[in-house]
């Protein structure tokens, strides 16, 4: 997101504008008012007496509201105006914009205020790919309200625009004749409602949003959310800032599904990915489970409700498969895109079972585990029945929808992410290594749930036996003997795809690594080829495709590192976990506590600061969740036999850390730790100035 754009959102409704608050989008330009993956305003321009306005400042008040301070005239160096304009915008199911005009003259003034409005009703996919529309536009003035509309067969989307102050409405906007006394003010409130028949109407599944541009309880909701989360006390101002930033961003990333509008799950990223993603919602729920376990509950319920039940090639759907992505726009509605929902993810299904077990271990909510028994069993069944595309006992992926389906169905989903040392790309199907780790963990955790909650000893035994067999085979088949690490994948010909990648860290998290091999894996993770000083690179230096600013081929991903740190703790490598936590949290300080999706894989000693990877999506859910999981790993928080175990291993730079009121089956508990781990000299380099 370009820094001269302003964005606010609520759920999947968001506004992206320039710094005057205006919107002037072209088909490919990502500004506008969006809701349910459709652009409802592509033009929104405020003028006073025909003149555009000039921004003095922008106040980002909350993630859902912002205020623009403006004066007439543009492009001049010297601004000395007798008039101030304040636009205060709050987003809901559309937005409300209060416009205040302040006359600084000693005499009354008469002005013409004009808002030009228009919409192209583009689908988000069209904004990305510059596609043309098939339907027809209409505009009407209805009882003083301007209605912009788009229709294609039965598909209808409308934008309703109305002003509280008297105005003249035409098909291109609203005009207000304004008279302001000397030193007086004038104000109007404009409501813009994104209207979808049968969806946002009162009786529709998103009906709570109906007819109003905003919800009155948004600010209160945010305060309540923040007050329910554990409290952090520590000596590091930057860590405190990062923690607060993570909680607020996680609040902004909440997304209410249509089937339970009063609950929320984490969407993948803001603003373009404000929708349900199996992988992102599950991983973020795992990262935040010690802080906001209710997100996990909604994630599990909602993904369970939409679990695959059939074979459908267009959607890459199988029985038991957990969805990849849900979308609501025109292309999805006409089945030109498969996102209703789309199932092309190879990891979300085993991770679903992992999350269910982790959730139960923290919360003791056995009712949900019983409620979701059928879904969890279907997910476990998917692993062996539908995901073993090569018949070799491993999860592989290969899309069946070759036109609009996803080629890479693991988290490293770019075209060149999985490669041999020499840079060659393997064919499909591909069995990436972390998928096998997730499958192992799902079976082990499924066995625990079967024994403790579902009371099915035979099923538990079967799963454990399968898991043990998988672990044995995996440690044999994926182990690259001449490098002493695990291959990133097995290709369609059964060959090891032998590059060294961060994926081996996920294997530690899943527990699939033989104890005897763990030390070598850790040495690779913390060695110069993978560890940059800030974190573990996605691909090791020296591999054919290595590029420190390549999306999945050399950058450092905070989310990836948070799971690697968890894996290091699982195998007892506390100091190494602390080094990763320190590196990533140090990096966060350079981004005001908001970690980007990825940053450059340059050695820390070379760049002094982390180089952000240019990306259109910020904050991103699993980057937001990374500091939370790192706090958990540093404090060594683990639910064991219904109690919260605390086993801190903190870098000395943090000095002390207290996390108070950690929710769980124990009620609320506090955790405390002191910094005792001396990290290597390289990571104790000059620290950023705390802002």
């Amino acid at each position: 997101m370009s820094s001269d754009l302003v964005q606010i959102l609520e759920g999947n409704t968001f506004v992206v504008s320039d710094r005057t608050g205006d919107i002037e989008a072209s088909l490919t330009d990502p500004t506008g008012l969006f809701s349910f993956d459709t652009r409802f305003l592509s033009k929104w321009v405020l003028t006073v007496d025909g003149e555009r306005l000039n921004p003095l400042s922008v106040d980002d008040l909350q993630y859902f509201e912002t205020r623009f301070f403006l004066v007439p005239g543009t492009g001049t160096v010297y601004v000395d105006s007798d008039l101030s304009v304040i636009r205060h915008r709050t987003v809901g199911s559309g937005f409300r914009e209060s416009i205040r005009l302040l006359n600084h003259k000693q005499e009354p003034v008469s002005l013409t205020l004009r808002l030009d409005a228009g919409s192209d009703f583009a689908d988000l996919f069209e904004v990305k790919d510059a596609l043309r529309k098939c339907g027809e536009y209409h505009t009407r003035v209805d009882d003083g309200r301007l209605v912009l509309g788009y229709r294609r067969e039965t598909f209808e989307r409308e934008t309703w625009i109305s002003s509280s102050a008297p105005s003249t409405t035409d098909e291109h906007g609203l005009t207000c004749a304004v008279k302001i006394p000397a030193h007086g003010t004038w104000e109007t409130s404009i409501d813009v409602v994104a209207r979808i028949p049968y969806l946002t109407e009162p009786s529709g599944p998103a009906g709570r949003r109906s007819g109003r541009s905003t919800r009155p309880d948004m600010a209160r909701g945010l305060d309540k959310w923040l007050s329910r989360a554990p409290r952090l006390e520590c000596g590091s101002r930057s860590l405190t800032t990062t923690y607060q930033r993570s909680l607020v961003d996680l609040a902004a990333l909440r997304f209410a599904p249509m089937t339970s509008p009063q609950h929320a799950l984490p969407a993948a990223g803001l603003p373009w990915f404000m929708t349900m993603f199996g992988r992102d919602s599950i991983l973020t729920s795992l990262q935040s489970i010690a802080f906001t376990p209710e997100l996990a509950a909604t994630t599990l319920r909602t993904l369970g409700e939409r679990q695959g039940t059939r074979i459908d090639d267009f959607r890459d759907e199988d029985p038991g498969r957990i969805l990849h992505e849900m979308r609501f726009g025109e292309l999805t509605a006409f089945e030109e895109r498969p996102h209703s929902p789309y199932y092309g993810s190879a990891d979300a299904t085993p991770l679903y079972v992992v999350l269910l077990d982790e959730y139960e271990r923290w919360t003791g909510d056995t009712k949900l585990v019983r409620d979701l028994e059928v879904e969890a069993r279907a997910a476990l069944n998917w692993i062996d029945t539908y995901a073993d595309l090569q018949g070799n006992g491993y999860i592989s992926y290969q899309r069946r929808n070759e036109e609009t389906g996803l080629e890479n169905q693991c988290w490293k989903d770019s075209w060149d992410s999985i490669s041999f040392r020499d840079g060659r790309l393997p064919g499909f199907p591909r069995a990436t290594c972390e998928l096998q780790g997730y499958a192992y963990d799902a079976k082990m955790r499924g066995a625990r749930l079967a024994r403790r909650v579902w009371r099915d000893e035979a099923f538990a035994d079967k799963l454990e036996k399968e898991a043990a067999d998988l672990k044995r085979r995996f440690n044999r088949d994926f182990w690259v003997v001449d490098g002493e690490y695990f291959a990133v994948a097995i290709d369609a010909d059964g060959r090891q795809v032998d590059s060294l990648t961060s994926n081996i860290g996920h294997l530690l998290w899943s527990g699939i690594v033989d104890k005897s091999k763990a030390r070598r894996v850790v040495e690779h993770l913390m060695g110069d080829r993978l560890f940059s000083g800030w974190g573990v690179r996605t691909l090791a230096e020296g591999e054919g495709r290595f590029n420190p600013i390549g999306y999945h081929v050399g950058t450092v991903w905070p989310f990836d590192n948070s799971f690697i740190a968890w894996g290091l703790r699982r195998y007892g490598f506390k100091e190494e976990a602390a080094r990763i936590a320190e590196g990533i949290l140090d990096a966060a300080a350079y981004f005001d506590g908001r970690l980007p999706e990825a940053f450059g894989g340059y050695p820390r000693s070379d760049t002094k600061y982390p180089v952000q990877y240019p990306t259109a999506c910020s904050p991103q859910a699993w980057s937001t969740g990374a500091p939370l999981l790192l706090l958990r790993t540093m404090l060594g928080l683990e639910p064991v036999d219904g109690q919260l175990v605390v086993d801190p291993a903190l870098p000395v730079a943090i000095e002390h850390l207290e996390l108070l009121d950690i929710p769980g089956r124990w009620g609320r508990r506090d955790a405390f730790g002191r910094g005792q781990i001396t990290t290597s000299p390289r990571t104790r380099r000059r620290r950023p100035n705390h802002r």
Partner: protein
Amino acid sequence: MLEKASGTLRFDLVGGPQVEHWYLTIAHGNVVVSQRKSRADVVVTVDGRLLDRIVTGTANAMAAFLRGAMRVEGDFALLIAFQRLFGGPPETCATRTTDEADHSERTPR
């Protein structure tokens, strides 16, 4: 899935000479279809031919809902459960590859 979703969907089938009402009740894992009038948790208004396509797996209920070809008033979770009752489209790789012994169980139900 069906054990959790329970309730009655009323389908108002349009597109014919007159609106037909059908009731589909999901309870304790059973599905009962009838034309006898009863209370409904969700009312679905849809063209009868489109419903046929949804039931045979050639059209998708969620997509139909998003394009306004299927109107839903009431408990949306029931509609999601309903959509999941049916098999996939007849033309799938799975049916084409049933000669592979390993994958024979992948035939649509």
